[in-house]
């Protein structure tokens, strides 16, 4: 008993040392995930940004699983993600968008250069819709099922390897 006590501090220190080493060599995942995943889409009303393309109204985003892409023309990863959104669209996905702190001219130029996968684009100058979704940056993509519930959040740009995974998730969300 007494011998064990004598070595207890060293054992405790070894545990802390191991933990600290683990913390040091495997830095924390600082990605912030939305608390809205698994909950119904919050009420978001955003006006149209471009003529001929409707804005976002939550009530309309039901009946069929879809992707809601948070993007901006000034965001570099959004350019990298654009071809994969087009691929998703070509595979039959319906994709809506929220444009963060953007102007119609800049978005028009962005879509002309990178292609336009979007059915709707909501104009979110004050990041109101973004905050309601619990999104903390661009690009982010939310997968909404046919009942209007957020089932998945993709933080960061969508890459080639994510396309099949997202299509499968869309199929499962019917």
């Amino acid at each position: 008993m007494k011998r064990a006590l004598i070595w207890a501090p060293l054992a405790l220190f070894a545990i802390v040392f191991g933990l600290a080493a683990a913390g040091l060599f495997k830095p924390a995942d600082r990605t912030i995930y939305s608390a809205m995943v698994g909950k119904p889409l919050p009420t978001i009303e955003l006006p149209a940004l471009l003529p001929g393309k409707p804005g976002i109204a939550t009530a309309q985003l039901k009946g069929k699983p879809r992707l809601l892409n948070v993007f901006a023309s000034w965001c570099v990863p959004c350019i990298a993600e654009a071809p994969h959104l087009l691929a998703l669209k070509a595979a039959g996905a319906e994709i809506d968008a929220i444009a963060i702190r953007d102007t119609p001219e800049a978005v028009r130029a962005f879509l002309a250069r990178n292609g336009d996968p979007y059915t709707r684009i909501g104009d979110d100058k004050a990041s109101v819709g973004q905050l309601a979704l619990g999104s903390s940056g661009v690009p982010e993509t939310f997968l909404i099922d046919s009942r209007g519930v957020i089932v998945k959040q993709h933080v960061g740009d969508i890459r080639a390897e994510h396309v099949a995974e997202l299509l499968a998730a869309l199929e499962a969300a019917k």
Partner: protein
Amino acid sequence: MIAEAGLAALWLAGTFALIQLMLAWGAVRANGTAQADELMTALRRVSLLQGLLALLSFGLLIALFVRSDMSVVLVATNSHSAKPLIYKIAGAWGNHEGSMLLWVAVLATAGAGVALFERRLASATLAATLGAQAFIAIGFYAFLVFASNPFIRLDPPAPDGQGLNPLLQDPGLAFHPPTLYIGYVGLSVAFSFAVGALIMRDVGPAFAKAMRPWVLTAWIFLTIGITAGSYWAYYELGWGGWWFWDPVENASLMPWLAATALLHSVTVLATRDGLRAWTLMLALVAFAMSMIGTFLVRSGILVSVHAFAVDPTRGSFILALLGIYIGGALALFGLRVGTVTQGSTFRLVSREGALVLNNLLLTVILGIVFIGTLYPLFAQAMGVQLSIGAPFFNKATAPVALALVAATAAGPLLRWRRDSMNALLGKLLVPVGAAGVAFALVFALSRGTHPVPVLAIAFAVGLGVASVLPLVRRNLRRTPMHVWGMVIAHLGVAVSLAGMAADSAFKTERLAAVHVGDNVTVGPFRVTLAEVRPAIGPNWSALEARLQVRRGEDGQVFEMMPQQRFFSAPPTNTNEAAIRTLFDGQLYTVLGEGAEDGRWQLRLWWKPWVTLIWLGGGLIALGGLLALIGRVRRERREDDA
């Protein structure tokens, strides 16, 4: 040339540390032979030289900052030629490299102090102690020259510097790190004494008496550092709180808790030859907490608002040092403590017993803070992200802290060796009565207040009364200075506790958006926003609100001017709270954002008796200082006799 000279001094100091270690080794092996004395003389001189060189290196770094030498990377990234002189000087340690150099300079100076002044220890034990001190220093010299060189040149030189974090540009904070570091590193001496004593199997009253002034000094500086840090966060961050349980704050609290326990157990060892193994353990733990604190702050593995050097390479270097020193010392403890014979024994109800209880309770609080601070790291290893905040720490520590207050009240009233329960209860009658009356009074006068802070006020009153009891029926002029020290320090704890409890029980807060000319009331005050105007400082511009404040209906009107400051290099905004200190508390005002409709946000707090928190901290440190002077004087007299 200054930078090169500084680096050269650093290398030389490191070399002397190596020589010091070898000489110490030789002196321990030659123990008892004629050669040992020669080696001891050389060892003392080398320790002194090492300290002087480390100080010189740090002095040269300060010179570089004072001259705003922008051809040095560290100066260019952390200073600015337009800064007031005092912040140029403080800039030398307001960054990672400089603060590590300060650390090693204090460490080496402390070692030199031991070599110069220590005459009480057996010479082999002193040699082992100086060797341990050199061994610690070597690691930090290596860390500085290989991973954090403060003297690297910048070619071509920068046109001007990038400035210093304006949050740190404050006289309180400028002297905060040196104060804390002297405390941390003072504990390294206690650590080295413990290692030396373990190596030589020489644990007894002489060892405790040699160690005690160092522990006291470190503890005084830690107390001042924590008190000042708390006040700094309170008035500079503009959030109106005085303790946040932030990992960086905890990093200074943990060594303080360990040092407080050590201070009490070392007294038992010095006067009664008891608690030998426990005192050794605490000496190791206290410095371990200092190093772990440094590591946590420097490595960035714990996210904190204060941490300003996040770098995994440096983190792993410090972690390795931590493993060698702490792990090594704890292993040495495990191997050797069995050979430390048990000291004298005592009854449970005695001064020793109360001190053991005090030690246990302090250790429990230390454990809670330690677990709360490191648990997020543990959870992360398990794949969970979480943070632990004030609610956990407050709830977990409050009951233990109140028990500790009770033990602090009872301890000094007990006799050494043995006392009777009845005698103790008799002596406690007055303080407990005072606490009861205080509880009833405060509770009745402040209906609706949460009972816990009221209970804390009652405990504070009880402790306050109990603290001065040891002076009753004593010839005050012949009372030894260290007794005065104990009385004042314990009184300080009572005063601080009263301040904390009063703040949490009675503070009132008001958040308002007002036009110029509008009134807001907070507590007994009516505050009028008279105007918002621009103001200019040496390296900032600001928006300044002029508030006219009246207490009650017929009080004198006085003005307060909270500011929002804008610093240009680097571009930063800070809130300068305006605080008015009155005899019974502080009015705390912050100017917030202006809205488009012309209204300004004002945050107002009335905090009754909040100043007692820091006044108490000051009393605790003063008590420590009196005890230190008293002990040193008495021991000098004993030596002369």
